[in-house]
C-alpha cells in the first residue's frame, strides 16, 4: 500500500514537472499579428502567420459531426480520456511492441498541438493526458472543439477549418456540405496522404469511410450518406504554388530574418514593401519558360538532361531596385535560387571588366589595335595555358571594339596578362562583383563563378555610367499602425568617371548591334542597349547580360548537374542561342510602350569612324569601318601619318616589357 502511494506520488512529480500553464482563453492561440509583404506594384504577395479563426457557430455541423466521428466518437462523453480507445491502443501497441496508435481524444490532440512536441514517448503522452484533463476541467466542450477546429492542419498550407474550406472549396466553413465536411475531416490525420489535390480517389475513400462512421454514430442517416456520396464535391483547382515571386520572397525573408531576427519578421505584424514588380516577374517567367521549352524540344534526350534551368535578375538602373528575380523555371519543382546562390562561370560576359581595366590602367581605347592570334602562356609548375577562340579562327590585327563584339578569347587573355588579374579583380569589385575571383589569367574568360544578381548589378553600373547602386530589395517597412520602421535611401557611388565608362558602353552596344549578341536585334528589339554574351567550356553555361537606359538584366541558362547543353544536331547552346532570346523576350515586354531612350553622352567624349583593321581614321582605303566613342583627349591618327612601321605583335606572351599598349597610331 505504502509502496503504491510512493509510486503514485513519484509518478505525479515525474509527470507534473514542467507541466505547462494553460492560457485563460483558448482564442489566444490564434491571435498574432500577420506580416504582410507587398510588391512594388501594390500586390500583397505573401502574408506570414495569418490565421482565420471562426467561432463554432460559423462552422458547419456537417464538419464538426464528421471530425467527431473521425477522430473522437465519444468526445461529448469523456473528460479527456476515452477508456475504450485507450485500451484498444494499448493492446495494439503491446502486441506490436511499438507505439502504433495513440487513442488520442480531440482534447488530447489539442493539448499536444498547443504545448508539446510531436515526438512519441510515454512521458510526453502522460503529460499530454494530464493537460487534456485540465482542458476539460477548465473549458466547455464547445470551446475545446472550436479551438481544435481552428488550429489543426489540413494540408496544402491550410491551418484551421475556415482556411481549409477556402483552399479546397473556396467557400466559408459554415457552408460545407456533408461530403465536403467528411473529406475535410479525413485530412488532419493524413494531410498529405489523403489530400484530394494529390490523390482524389484516396481522399474520397477516406471521406466515405468517415461517412460510414457518421452513420454508425447516428450523426447522419444512411440516406444522407448515400445522398452525400452521390453529390458533387465541388473541389476547386489547387492554388498554384508555382508563384515565380517565391524566389524573391524567400530571399528577402532570409535577409530580413538575418538582420532583424526571425520573430521580428514572423510575429511583428509588419508591412514590408519590396522592390519586386510582379508584372515584370511574370514577363520574366513566361519569357524563360517559352524559350526553354523551345530549346528542350531540340535537345538530346538523356537522363538528367531534359530539364534546363534558368537564373535571372533585372535591376532598375536609376535606383538599384531589384525588380525581377527568377531563381528557376518552377518554384514548386525546385526551390533552389539560381539567381543568387548558383555561382556559375560567367564565361565571356566577364570580359567587359578586363577591357575597362585595360582602357583605364594601360591607356587602351576602343580603336587600339590588338593582334588576334593563337597564344600560349607559361604557367609555373603547369603546362602552358592556350586559350582558343570560340571558333578557333583568328582575325589578326583588329581594333579593341571589334574584338569585344566578336568576343575574342585570345585578345582578352592578352589584355589580362598586360593589366594583371589583380587589377581586373579590383575593377570587378568596383562594379559590385562580390564572389571570390581567381587571381589567374583565365579570369579573363570568366572562370570564377558569379551569380546573375552580381552580373545584373555590375552591368547596371555600366548603364549608369560608373555609378554603382547597391542592389536592394526592400523599399520600406512599417509596423501594423503604418509607422515607418525602415526606409531605403538610395546610395549611389560614382566609382568611375562617366567618360571612362562610356567607351565601354559603346563597345557593348556594338555587341548587340553587330556582335555576338546580334540575335537581340534579329528578334526585333529596337531600344538602345548594350550587353555581352557568355558561354563556358563544353556549353555548360550560357549567359546574356545586358542593359538599356532603364534596366540591367542578367540571364543564365544551364543544367543543374553541369552537363553540357547539346542539341540533336550536336550543336552546343551558347549565350546567344540560350540566354539572349530570354533576355530579349523579357526586355521587349518590360519596355513595351516606353520610349526608346538613348544613353546620355557624357562630357569629354567624342565619336570617330575608324578602320577596323588599322585603328586609323576611316578613309577610302578602309575595307571595314566602325564608329567608336573615345575620350576627347584620345588622338586617332589618319592613315597618312602612319609612317612608322608598327609592330603589331605587341602581346608576345613570353616577355612583359614589350607588352606595351599601342594606342591607335
Amino acid at each position: 500500500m505504502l509502496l503504491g502511494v510512493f509510486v503514485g506520488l513519484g509518478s505525479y512529480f515525474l509527470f507534473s514537472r514542467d507541466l505547462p500553464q494553460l492560457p485563460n482563453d483558448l482564442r489566444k492561440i490564434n491571435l498574432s499579428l500577420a506580416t504582410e509583404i507587398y510588391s512594388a506594384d501594390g500586390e500583397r504577395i505573401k502574408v506570414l502567420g495569418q490565421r482565420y479563426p471562426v467561432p463554432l457557430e460559423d462552422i458547419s455541423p456537417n464538419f464538426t459531426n464528421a471530425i467527431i466521428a473521425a477522430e473522437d466518437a465519444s468526445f461529448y462523453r469523456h473528460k479527456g480520456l476515452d477508456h475504450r480507445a485507450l485500451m484498444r491502443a494499448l493492446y495494439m501497441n503491446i502486441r506490436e511492441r511499438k507505439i502504433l496508435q495513440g487513442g488520442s481524444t480531440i482534447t488530447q490532440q489539442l493539448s499536444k498541438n498547443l504545448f508539446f512536441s510531436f515526438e512519441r514517448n510515454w512521458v510526453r503522452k502522460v503529460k499530454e493526458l494530464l493537460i487534456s484533463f485540465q482542458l476539460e476541467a477548465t473549458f466547455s466542450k464547445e470551446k475545446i472543439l472550436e479551438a481544435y477546429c481552428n488550429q489543426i492542419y489540413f494540408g496544402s498550407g491550410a491551418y484551421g477549418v475556415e482556411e481549409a474550406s477556402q483552399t479546397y472549396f473556396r467557400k466559408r466553413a459554415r457552408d460545407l456540405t456533408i461530403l465536403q465536411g467528411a473529406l475535410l475531416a479525413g485530412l488532419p490525420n493524413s494531410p498529405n496522404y489523403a489530400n484530394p489535390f494529390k490523390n482524389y480517389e484516396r481522399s474520397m475513400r477516406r471521406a466515405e469511410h468517415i461517412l460510414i462512421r457518421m452513420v454508425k454514430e447516428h450523426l447522419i442517416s444512411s440516406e444522407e450518406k448515400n445522398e452525400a456520396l452521390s453529390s458533387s464535391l465541388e473541389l476547386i483547382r489547387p492554388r498554384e504554388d508555382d508563384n515565380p515571386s517565391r524566389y524573391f520572397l524567400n530571399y528577402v525573408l532570409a535577409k530580413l530574418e538575418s538582420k532583424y531576427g526571425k520573430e521580428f519578421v514572423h510575429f511583428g505584424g509588419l508591412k514590408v514593401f519590396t522592390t519586386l514588380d510582379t508584372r515584370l516577374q511574370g514577363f520574366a517567367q513566361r519569357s524563360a519558360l517559352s524559350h526553354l521549352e523551345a530549346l528542350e524540344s531540340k535537345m538530346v534526350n538523356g537522363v538528367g538532361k531534359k530539364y534546363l534551368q534558368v537564373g535571372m535578375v533585372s535591376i532598375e538602373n536609376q535606383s538599384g531596385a531589384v525588380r525581377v528575380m527568377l531563381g528557376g523555371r518552377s518554384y514548386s519543382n525546385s526551390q533552389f535560387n539560381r539567381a543568387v546562390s548558383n555561382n556559375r562561370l560567367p564565361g565571356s560576359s566577364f570580359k567587359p571588366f578586363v577591357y575597362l581595366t585595360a582602357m583605364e590602367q594601360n591607356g587602351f581605347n576602343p580603336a587600339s589595335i590588338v593582334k588576334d592570334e593563337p597564344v600560349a602562356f607559361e604557367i609555373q609548375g603547369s603546362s602552358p595555358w592556350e586559350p582558343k577562340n570560340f571558333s578557333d579562327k583568328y582575325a589578326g590585327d583588329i581594333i579593341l571594339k571589334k574584338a569585344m563584339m566578336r568576343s575574342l578569347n585570345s585578345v582578352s587573355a592578352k589584355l589580362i596578362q598586360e593589366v594583371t588579374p589583380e587589377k581586373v579583380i579590383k575593377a570587378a569589385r568596383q562594379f559590385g562583383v562580390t564572389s571570390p575571383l581567381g587571381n589567374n589569367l583565365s579570369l579573363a574568360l570568366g572562370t570564377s563563378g558569379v551569380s546573375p544578381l552580381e552580373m545584373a548589378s555590375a552591368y547596371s553600373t555600366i548603364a549608369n555610367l560608373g555609378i554603382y547602386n547597391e542592389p536592394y530589395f526592400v523599399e520600406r517597412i512599417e509596423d501594423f499602425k503604418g509607422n515607418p520602421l525602415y526606409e531605403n535611401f538610395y546610395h549611389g557611388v560614382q566609382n568611375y568617371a562617366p567618360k571612362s565608362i562610356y567607351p565601354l558602353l559603346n563597345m557593348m552596344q556594338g555587341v548587340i548591334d553587330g556582335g555576338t549578341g546580334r540575335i537581340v536585334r534579329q528578334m526585333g528589339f529596337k531600344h538602345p542597349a548594350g550587353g555581352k554574351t557568355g558561354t563556358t567550356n563544353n556549353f555548360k553555361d550560357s549567359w546574356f547580360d545586358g542593359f538599356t537606359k532603364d534596366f540591367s538584366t542578367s540571364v543564365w541558362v544551364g543544367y543543374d548537374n553541369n552537363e553540357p547543353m547539346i542539341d540533336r544536331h550536336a550543336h552546343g547552346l551558347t549565350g546567344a542561342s540560350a540566354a539572349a532570346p530570354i533576355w530579349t523576350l523579357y526586355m521587349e515586354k518590360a519596355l513595351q510602350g516606353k520610349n526608346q531612350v538613348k544613353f546620355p553622352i557624357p562630357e569629354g567624349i567624342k565619336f570617330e569612324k575608324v578602320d577596323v583593321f588599322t585603328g586609323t581614321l576611316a578613309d577610302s582605303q578602309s575595307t571595314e569601318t566602325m564608329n567608336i566613342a573615345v575620350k576627347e583627349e584620345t588622338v586617332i591618327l589618319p592613315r597618312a601619318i602612319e609612317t612608322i612601321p608598327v609592330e603589331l605583335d605587341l602581346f608576345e606572351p613570353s616577355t612583359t616589357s614589350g607588352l606595351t599598349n599601342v594606342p591607335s597610331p
Partner: protein
Amino acid sequence: MKLSGIQRQWWMGIMLCLGILVLFPLEFYGKIFERGIGNYLKWQNSARPQLGRVWDKDRQTILAQTKVQSIRSLLDSRQESAEAIDSLKALFENTEPSFPLVLSREKFLDLYYDFPGQWSVRIISPFELISIDSKYNWTRVLLKRFGQWFTISFLDSHNIPVHEVFVATDALKEVQATRTVKQGSLEEVGFEKDRVYSVAVFLPLLQSLDPKTQHAVFPDPRWFLAKDYSITRIGVRELEPSNKTVSSLEFGIEYNTDYYTGVLLIPVSREIANNLLSQIERTNFDIWGEEFSAITVPSVGGNP
C-alpha cells in the same frame, strides 16, 4: 481482540476489492479520476511555467513587438533630434558618418533661411533651390557625411534623390559658418562692459558701410524683423585662441524677444574688422565720442 496476520491480509484484500468496486462505477460514470486531476491542475495552473508552443508564440510576439517599439523609439528620437536642430550649421555638425539625417522640406528651408548670414546661400544658391523646385517634387532632404564631404540629397516621395549637392566639411570652418546664437545678455555671454555699445551708435555706422562689409558683420535685417527681435546693444571681443577660425574678433548683437534676451555672435575676419573700425574712426568719431576711444584697435593688420 487482535487479528492474526492472515486475517489482517484478508480484511485488507476485501477492503481493496470493495474500494475498487466503488471506484469503478464512480470512474466509469462520473469520471472522478479525470475530474479530480483536472481540477487539481486547474487550481495550481498559475503556479506552473508558461511552456510549450502556444507560449513560445506568445513570447515571440512579445519579443517582436518589443523590437518594433525599440526601433520606433530610436527613429522617433532621431526625428525629434533632427526637428530640434536650430541652425543650419548644427545640422551639419550633427550628421555623423554612420547616421544620415532626414529632414522635412519645411524644416530644411526653415534652417536654410534662418541662418543669420550669407553662408547658407553660399552652400546652395536659392536659385538652385528654385530650379530644383521647378523640375521636381522634393519632399525631404537626406544629409549624409562621407569622408571629407557632406551630401545633401533632395528626395522625392519615393526616396529617389532628384538633386544632390556636395559640401566639403571645411565649409563648416568658414568664418561665415560660425555665426551662432546664445541666450543671455552680452555680459552674460562674456562681453566686457567697456566694449559694449548702444545700437543707436552702431546702426548709422553699419548703414554707411559697403554691402560686402555689411554682410560680413551683420545678418540680413529680415532675420531680426521676421522674428520680432529688437536689437539693443552691440559688443566686440577678441576670440579665444582655441577657436580655429581665421577670424580674431567677434561681434555680439544683443536683442530682446518677448521672453528672453539673446546674442547673435558673428566672428569677423581681422581684415574686415580693421576695415570697419577704421571707417568708424574716420567718419563717425564724433558719434562714438568717448565710447569709441574705449575700443582697442587690434595691433596687427595692414589697415589699422
